[in-house]
């Protein structure tokens, strides 16, 4: 019996060894900004990345049809609709779209590539820090800007990664109870009047909301100035709080900020009709559309000091060593809409059908209140015109990458009871 046990222990050790070996193989990494030899030959063949010199769209289209497929990892369910209309325009190309949410898009892309799998063609998601400092910086994706749009997109929206759509975190109030925005300075939300009367979707569960609160923390100087304007006095920081940006989050959390698990609940909290004492919500601009579809009565709080909101981009790029690089290029161009659109183009509802779909193309499902194309020649959709009047901060990928973890730690520390 003793010998038997020894054999068993031996079996155990051997299989563990095999197992660990399997891991060791899975942990290789593309380090630095230099292309690996495989990556280099792929980029050369696909004319992407540093070999993306001149785009011949007839050739790209022909090659794309030959490739016959494009696989997308996205954080948006509407990407499926984009795929459907794309397939109608190019029946030769099959579109497979994985709707993963931003966190799992990164998880899956990085996990697969580290395991040596290059399954995706297009990666499109928000999450600025991760996208720029992990995916782009480590060559897990390559930036690709379709040449016909190159001069219609502002530099910051095409470098270091192409922006597909912009959205924003804003402040909303109930227009049934208040005739005008109830606050003019963000610091009012930290006063006794707003104790338990501000609602936000959990920034720990939502990257866009984390970007929102982190961007406020980043603008400490503006927050400090706004405080002085509001109270006439210099701000006194709470113990252990580094600056006025963090202090705002601190006071918000200690003013019984209400954290919810869903964006529509958050938007409904401020926007549902028939309330007597509704809260203010910190939520996505695009949820303003629920005024039409869910009969809410939300209004945007602006102008407000020091900023009316935080713009966060959704990027798109072509995945490293993608099997269908040309189909990916074609799809990227499609996502930005037809090049013929101008600011004077009249785009009628419904956007996802008929003539409107024909010119909006991949923009159609995203053509709504609170979503804005990076192209400077696409008109804003009806109801979303406020975007251009608002003074908003833009998410900074570098801050998100290096400082958001600190903001997140701070949030965990101060939100627990």
């Amino acid at each position, binding site marked *: 019996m003793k010998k038997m046990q020894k054999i068993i222990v031996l079996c*155990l050790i051997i299989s563990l060894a095999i*197992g660990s070996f*399997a891991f060791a*193989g899975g942990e290789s990494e593309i380090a630095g900004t230099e292309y690996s030899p495989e990556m280099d030959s792929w980029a050369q063949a696909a004319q992407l990345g540093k070999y993306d010199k001149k785009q011949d769209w007839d050739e790209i289209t022909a090659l794309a049809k030959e490739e016959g497929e494009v696989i997308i990892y996205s954080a948006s369910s509407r990407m499926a609709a984009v795929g459907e209309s794309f397939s109608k325009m190019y029946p030769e190309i099959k579109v497979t779209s994985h709707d993963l949410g931003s966190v799992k898009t990164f998880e899956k892309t990085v996990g697969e590539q580290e395991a040596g799998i290059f399954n995706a063609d297009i990666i499109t998601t928000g999450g600025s820090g991760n996208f720029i400092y992990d995916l782009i910086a480590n060559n897990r994706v390559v930036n690709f800007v379709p040449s016909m749009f190159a001069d219609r997109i502002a530099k910051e929206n095409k470098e270091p990664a192409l922006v597909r759509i912009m959205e924003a975190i804003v402040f909303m109030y109930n227009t049934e109870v208040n005739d005008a925005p109830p606050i003019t300075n963000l610091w009012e939300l930290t006063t006794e009047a707003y104790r338990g009367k501000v609602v936000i979707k959990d920034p720990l569960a939502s990257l866009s909301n984390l970007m929102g609160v982190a961007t406020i923390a980043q603008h400490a100087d503006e927050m400090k100035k706004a405080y002085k304007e509001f109270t006439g006095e210099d701000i006194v920081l709470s113990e252990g709080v580094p600056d006025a940006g963090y202090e705002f989050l601190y006071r918000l959390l200690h003013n019984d900020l209400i954290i919810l698990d869903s964006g529509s609940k958050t938007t*409904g909290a401020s926007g*549902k009709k028939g*309330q007597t004492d509704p809260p203010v919500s910190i939520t996505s601009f695009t949820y303003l559309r629920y005024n039409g579809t869910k009969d809410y009565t939300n209004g945007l709080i602006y102008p407000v000091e020091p900023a009316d909101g935080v713009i966060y981009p959704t990027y798109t790029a072509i995945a490293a060593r993608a099997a269908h690089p040309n189909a990916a290029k074609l799809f990227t161009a499609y996502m930005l809409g037809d090049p013929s659109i101008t600011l004077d183009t009249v785009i009628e509802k419904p956007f996802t059908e008929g003539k409107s779909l024909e010119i909006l193309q991949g923009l159609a499902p995203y053509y709504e209140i609170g979503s804005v194309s990076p192209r400077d020649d696409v008109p804003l959709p009806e109801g979303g015109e406020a975007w251009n009047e608002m003074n908003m901060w833009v998410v900074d990928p570098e801050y998100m990458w290096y400082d958001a973890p600190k903001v997140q730690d701070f949030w965990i*520390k*101060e*939100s627990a009871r």
Partner: protein
Amino acid sequence: MSKTLKFYRAKLKSKPELTLSIFFIIVFSFLIVVPFLKMIHTTFTYQSYDLRLARGAVQGAFTWFHYQRVFASDLTKSFFITPLLNSIGVGFSVTIIAMILGSLLAWLFVRTDIPHRKFFQTVIVVPYMIPSWVIALAWQLFFQNTRIGGQSGVLSTFFHIDVPDWLSYGFVPIVICLALHYYSYTFLLMSGALQTIDSELEEAGSIAGLKRREILRKITFPLVLPALGSSFVLTVTRSMGTFGTPALLGLPVRFFTIPTQIYAMINARNMGDSFVLALVLIVMAITAISINNKIIGVRKSFVTMKGKGFRAKPMELGKAKPVLVTLLIVFIIMIIVLPIIMLTWSTFMLLPDNYSFSNLTSHFWVGKSDAMISSGEPGIFLNRGVLRATLNSVKLGVLASIVNAFLGLLIGYSVVKNRGTRISKLIEGVAFAPYVFPGIAFSAIYLGMFSKSFGPIPAMYGTFALILLIVIVKNLPFSSRSGIAAMLQVDKSLEETASIQGIPWLKRFRLIILPLCKSGFVSGMLLTFITAMRELSLVILLVAPNTGLLTTMIFSYKTQEQTQHVNGVTLILLVIIILANIIIKKFANTKTGQSINLG
């Protein structure tokens, strides 16, 4: 050497349980132990996320960073201690309530002359089939107060009752909702245990002059103790490890538990910290198991299935009967009928939370795509994605349940046959290990492990096989437990007799053991089917579009905030699970209460 080999070969042949044990040890060490070690390894090395907090650190280098952050930093209180106390508080409160409730119900149905027993027994296990957060959703519909703005619950809207915060959110509702889900564990285990106790044993006590209370204490209680122990372990570990309900009811008053913190960390791709917390959960689960073993003793089991029949004598309820029946009906309406009605109703509401009749629509079931409603998603019955997901989920459930039921019995066989040896303990322990493994951590590791081909195993990335594999492994704890329980009840002498007559092992297994364990086999199958159908966190990282499941569908609708679709697909899931329950029962022709047996 060859002589020794021959000796072992002969020995293995005469002891099939040894061959099986060796097989299981090899397979388990790869499928369970290696992922576990990998997880520990992660907690001791810098991950990519950490490089953002600790600049200059080298990815993969050894560090105490995560342990320091979790256990000895200014984060410790918020990140670890408070959530830990909350988790323990919830876990034990839920367990106490659930065990009392479950035991009482089991006793009522097995040991008394309660009418409509069959009907009640079937209905009372439905909460086990409903995802636990459904009850939490229903709770919110009733008890939500004005704290979070928006629509208030039924109580404050229609009855103008000012619901206090402690009843709307946080500890109290979390405990109640979880207890109403987890009592079914104790109920099933105790029903099984009570059913197999020969009432002759108790009668013997009575003849020997024991009083009623003494019989209960000296005979019944020791006999059901193993079942109580299993209920304790299952309920306490599960309720401490659950995420959905605490997230829904705890967040608005910032009541955090260990799983909600793990989830937040995984969301940030902060694997190191989240795995440290996952290890905390694992340690707590192991503690619960060893407490159980200390008190009850693993080896204390009773052979109660000897191949001869017995009959339990029901206790007469007398005057209490109508009262108890009324209570039961109210209970069932409150925890099963109302939540399901609410769920169904919500799928017919054009605007969520608007209960007027003018708001009713059949769009979410049979409507064609309309861009103005739920981003143009067509109604559930017209939705190809839902159809494909339904087929995949059923396929997964059926395959996993068959494989798991067989594996469970084989594990049970090798554990029970080797009982008392270290191998037996090892297999039993390792087979139970996936239970304490947080699903999301498990799948993150599997994704890395099986994406590439190595040795004889092909790359399984994006395949249905990988999803099947992880579901099978994650369900091993249940199937092995029910396998062990089933085997324990089979008298050794039955197989030994056949063995002496020279009947080969396979035949013995098929003709003697399998039929005797039929009830355990079927219960194992049903259990796996249900959990496989409900599984989300385990598979979410592994699904590809053509391998999508009903739960991943629910998840993606949930992220898109399409409430009606979420609830509609949940209903489909529920209907399939209940149908499967009925079919398996019909097919296997077992007693109702026995068909799910977690023991």
